[in-house]
């Protein structure tokens, strides 16, 4: 197992250094003629008004939360799926129950209009 991750370790170093090398190469090659107007924020030629940090909707948070639930559910389901051949009928029922409970959550969210994007 560590052998497989050994490759990943080496690969991670390569995967990080290739984009970094690209940036360094560009830094050596490119022209540098800074000008204050160049460094302003690009908003289609208009001057920026106010702060960038606007307050976002609760909608994003709600979707992220529903995502967390399904993500955690998937984490439980993967080992269940791997072991499925070895499981009895009881394992099947438990797995389905697990999915159905979250399915109920999805239906609840749907009925409360939490899945509408406004």
């Amino acid at each position: 197992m560590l052998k497989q991750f050994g490759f990943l370790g080496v690969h991670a170093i390569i995967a990080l250094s290739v984009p970094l090398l690209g940036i360094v190469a560009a830094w050596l090659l490119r022209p540098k003629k800074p000008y204050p107007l160049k460094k302003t924020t690009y908003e289609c030629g208009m001057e920026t008004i106010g702060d960038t940090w606007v307050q976002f909707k609760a909608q994003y948070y709600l979707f992220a939360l529903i995502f967390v639930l399904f993500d955690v559910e998937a984490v439980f389901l993967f080992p269940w799926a791997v072991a499925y051949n070895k499981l009895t009928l009881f394992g099947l029922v438990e797995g389905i129950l697990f999915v159905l409970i979250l399915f109920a959550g999805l239906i609840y969210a749907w009925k409360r209009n939490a899945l509408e994007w406004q």
Partner: protein
Amino acid sequence: MNLLNPQTLAPWFISLIEGIGLSHFWTLVLWNLIGSISLVLFAIISILFIVWLERKFAARVQDRIGPNRVGPYGLAQTIADAIKLLTKEDITPATAERVSYNLAPVLAVFSVFMVAAVVPFAKGVIGADLNVGVLYITAISSIGIMAALMAGWSSDNKFALLGGFRVVAQLLSYEVPMVMAMVSVVLLAGSMSLQKIVAAQAGGRWFFWVMPGVFLLYIIAALAENERTPFDLLEADSEIVAGYHIEYGGIKFAWFFLTFFLNTLFLASFTTTFFLGGWRGPFAEQVPILGFVYYFIKTTLVIFFMMWVRATWPRLRIDQMMAFAWKVLVPTSLVLLIITAIVLKLGLPAIWVDALLLVLNVTVVLVVLGFLGRAMRLDIDRPKRRIAA
């Protein structure tokens, strides 16, 4: 000694280098280094080709010629573009958060290169055949999501921030049906290792034939994960200009561009691996080189499908896109998962299991399409009724 067989290549190389006098550990590091660099080179070279292919394909669909100046058939156009991007002046907004701003493109490229490590190219040719391969793909792609968030936030630009959060909301929403489709695949294959998933599709029993519904779910989610039409909201120029990478230029933009096309390549690779038998085909077991050929043919076909969709379909609205993920794809994926689990436990002979799964998959898809059609008709009729009232 068959050098064409990758399984004998590694021991041969290791004994060769150890013969020179390097220790076993450093020989392994060197071998991994060679594998890793060839993987990255493969990715970059194939991107040069895929970008050209996509431009040429889209041009033909739109009755244009496409790139045709640099090199034969414009083949060297992407190389020319890469050189241009490399020599562009770097314009960073003065108010940007510099560390995150520069780290974001690096992390984006990092995440796609890391995903490349678990693509099975042929028998015995895979960067790392992890026991948790399928989960690893989802885990690493979350680093890419993080990169989009970092880019959007650190640019100090309203459009970038909005684009970043939008794209994250989209990627999260479509990751759920994608992961559930993967669970169905794992259920059928009995393993999360990608080579074992390929092995489970021996003898032409591609999971595409067994579970076309799950395949459909996966490919739709893949289009959305890749931010392709009809889910390319982040490129909605009229709304948010260019999304989270609006403030990037030169090589840093090039890295985001590379990430996009590498995502296309690897999502197509995983579609091939999960549903189209991976590198399997006649004689691929005996002659591993043939495995590469089959892998490339199948992956290219999937990429062509994605390009075809991109060239012909209009873009969805954001509320339609989110509703489609949560109200159509997620319930369907859960139903298909339950169906797969039940059918596998019925204790039928293998051929009947496959046939039953196929029939049920098609039924589920038809039922969902029926519901979808009804919902759409209601949606179209709604304004009329309001006027009538």
